[in-house]
Structures are given as structure tokens and as C-alpha cells.
């Protein structure tokens, strides 16, 4: 599940294009998304989160909230890297 979501996040982020991402190289699981050295600012992050939520709904037929109180109050932010976001989304989908 997590791999599938990882792939989905990377694909969605690429679709958002260069305006939202200040990418040096390619995008992979370890790419820093938000925070120190992140490729996204807060507008970019919101756009990515909404797009990922919609993609999960479309492709996996499940709805997930990636930016609710719970996500924001995590000790370690789910938005640090592509893989932490995927991990958080997978946890939420499995009722975590």
C-alpha cells in the first residue's frame, strides 16, 4: 500500500510542475518536501496535499485527510519527505 501511495505522490507532485516545486534534481522517496531544504512552500504544500487526497480517492476509492488536526499535531511532521507523507497516508488508510 505504502509503495503504491509513494508512487502516486511522486506522480502527482510531478504533475504540479515547476511552479510549485523548486526542484534541483529528480523527485524520489527521500526528497524533502516541506520544512528545512523542502521543495514546497505552504501554498505548494496545500496544493500537493489536496491533489494527493483527490488522487487517492480516484484511484483507491478511499478518502483520507492528510491535513487535519491529527496530521498537524504529529510529533514528527508527515510532510518532511515524500516517504513520510506516504507512510502517514498509508497509516490513515489502514485506520491508524
Amino acid at each position, binding site marked *: 500500500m505504502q509503495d503504491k501511495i509513494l508512487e502516486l505522490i511522486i506522480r502527482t507532485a510531478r504533475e504540479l510542475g515547476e511552479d510549485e516545486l523548486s526542484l534541483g534534481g529528480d523527485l524520489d522517496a527521500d526528497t524533502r518536501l516541506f520544512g528545512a531544504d523542502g521543495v514546497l512552500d505552504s501554498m505548494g504544500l*496545500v*496544493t500537493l*496535499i*489536496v491533489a494527493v487526497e*483527490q488522487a487517492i480517492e480516484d484511484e483507491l476509492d478511499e478518502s483520507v485527510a492528510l*491535513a487535519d488536526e491529527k496530521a498537524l499535531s504529529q510529533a514528527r511532521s508527515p510532510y518532511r519527505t515524500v516517504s513520510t507523507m506516504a507512510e502517514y497516508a498509508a497509516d490513515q488508510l489502514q485506520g491508524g
Partner: protein
Amino acid sequence: MHIDFLREQFAKNRDSDALVWRDQVFSYEQILAEIDGWADVLEKESIAKGSVVSIEADFSPKAIALMLALIERNCVVVPLSSSVQNQIPEFREIAQVEVVISVSDEDVSEISRTGTKVDHPVLVDLQAKAHPGLILFSSGSTGKSKAAVHDFVPMLEKYKVPRHSLRTISFLLFDHIGGVNTLLYNLSNAGCVITVADRKPETVCAAIEKYGVELLPTSPTFLNLILVSRAYEEHELGGLKMVTYGTEVMPESTLERFHELFPDVRLLQTYGLSEVGILRSKSRSSDSLWVKVGGEGFETRVVDGMLEIKAKSAMLGYLNAPSPFTEDGWFKTGDAVEVDGEYIRILGRKSEIINVGGEKVYPAEVESTLQLMEGVDEVVVKGEPHPLTGNIVVANVKLGTDETLAQFRKRMRAFCSSRLARFKIPQKVELVENSLHGERFKKMRK
């Protein structure tokens, strides 16, 4: 006595066309006869002077004559059109309707009594003054419908000034301030109103051709539907001289495209509200959103970027909400405007401004940009709460292409990146199948 000036005008223009309804032309003589007919019926049925009477009908010779006969009898008129079908019981109750007169599609009327006793102070005052009244419900596209009560006496005053009339289509509804204005303006100048069976672009364009319509008063949403449907290609619209638009913010892109297609049609923005009536207005030019509003009986001012109006013919008050007027009688329209000398430009409803991370977004600006995109048939932009930025910009789009959401979003982002500030580009897009406007051809942002 209140409609004596109309009766005189009708008598002077007996043979002129007053109304086209169901492909039949009615003269002013026929309308006069209908009014007299109603006066007799109201007398025979013992409808007390000053009663609150609902006219449940769309524009028709009978419905129009009934409205005038009720004014003559000092009644309080509550027009309710088919577009509010589901709310009729609720609206009757709010307006304290005592007598219901419905006029069917076949122009057959029926009278019934509700047993309601009028006790609302605003209505009681009106009855004590022996003035006819008018109750209009706000469209409620962004909340609950409010019932505005008008005194017909000052309202009718402005129609006593003779003006030039054009053959006009009755696009706006019978129970809308714009529809009532179109009707009274034309009747008082012995003009002709052309009614349509429905408000599809095809039907309206056909009526313009067939009956030589010169003026189409409508909404930006409907102009966009005409463009998208290309209904104008099937009909000769050369007789059309003027299009007036109002009731919502005009997207710049719609105005430009319409003006390009019809360079000889004058485009005029109108401004009016159920609470204060219709102001006189003058657009800077056909392709300009800058407009001067005001005229006899109206004062305007802009406070903190918001338009305020003081009107001689303002409503007396709401029946179901506190007075919206300041102590010295100014009405806060809730419309945010830009000012350039005598001209204003309407940006949008204050309540519809989307605050994204501290930045203001007006839905109309975003809609206007998205409508420039190939394949976008209709679009409505609104805000949605979001924990990260307070709100996000959401675009509901009706597409004429078979793109997937991801494909469209990518194209949209590319298109908007050079045209809109980043925070204004919709963070969320939803594709929809159904039309995005209500019965009044106004975008639904609820």
C-alpha cells in the same frame, strides 16, 4: 389612483404591442381590459383593500394585469414564480399572505384564502397608510432568503419620467427586482415585453429573431451560456441593440468575448438590489467593467472598499431579518468595489471573498481566467476551509472535453501560471456534470 399614469399611457397607446406571450401578441387595449376584469373579480370575491396577496405565476397577460389591479386596490403584492416552487409554503408564511391567486401556464386563475392574519408591524403600517406594497425575496444564493417589503408609491414615482423604450425580453423573473423593473419600465413607456417559455439559450435567441427584440436584460452566467451553446449561430440577432447585465459580477473574459462577437450591441451593466431598487447606471464603454451608478433618488458612497447606497425608494424593511440600514439610512450592499473617479468596478460579495493564507481572492477574477481556457464550459469558484492556509480556492468546472481531472489540473496550472497570482490558482479542482447555475442564471456558490 396609483396606476392612473399607467392607465393613461395604455389608453393613449391602445393599439401598440404590450406583450408577447405564448406566440400571441397582446395590445395595451387588451391589458386594460384584463385590469378592469381583475378589478371586478377582486371586488366580487371581496378581497379587502390592503390585503397581502401572492401572485403565483410567471409573466403572462393575466398575471401582469393582476399585479396592476392589486396595486390599484392598495394590496401588498407577493409575486412568486415557478423558480421558487419548493419554497412557496415557507414564503407565503413569511410574507403573511392572506390570499393566494395562482395563474397557471394556461393563464387560468384560482383564488384561495390562507386564513392568515397580518400582524407584522411593517405590513400593518403599510395598510394603515393605504399604500400598495411589494414583497420580494432575495435569491438566497449565499444564505437564507430575506423578504424585502417595498412601498409601491415611491417605487412607482420614478417610472413617471418618460423614457425611451426598446422591445425587451422578459428574461429576469416576475418575482425579481430586475424583472419587476423591466416590466414597469416598459409598461410606463408603452414598450413591448416579449416573454419566453423557458430560458434556454436556444429559446431566447429564437425569440430575439422572431419578435425583433432590441434589449436583452440578463445575467453574465446566461451570456456565457449563449457563447458556449453557440445558439447565436442559428439565429439572426441583428435587431439586438442592447444587452444589460447584472445580479452578479461579470467575468471580464465573458464580456470581451461577447463584445467581440457582437461589436454593435451596446453592453450596459446594471446595478440593483431587492433592498434599494434599481439604480441608473452607465458603463464606461461596452467592453468596460467600470460603471457609474446612481441617478435621481440615489446617493452612493464607498466605505472601506464597500459600496453603500441611500435610496429614496429603499425598502421599508425585512420581514424576517433585522434592519440592514445604518441609523442615517445607508444600506451596506456587501459589494466590494474599486473606485476610479466617478466610476466603480464591482469585485464581488464581501461574503464570498476567499482568504487564503492572509491573501484575498475574489471568485470572479479566477472564474474569468478559467473561462478563457478552451473546453471550460462553466466554472464556479468558491472557498473551502483548510487547516494549513485557513481556506483554499476550489474550482468546480464543467468541461466540454473528456480530460481526466489530473490532465485538466495540469493544463489549468500551466494556463494560470502567467495570468494569476499563485495563491489565486485553485488548489482544488472538481469536475462536475451538471450545470452550475440556479433558476435565476446566477452562479451558485453555496
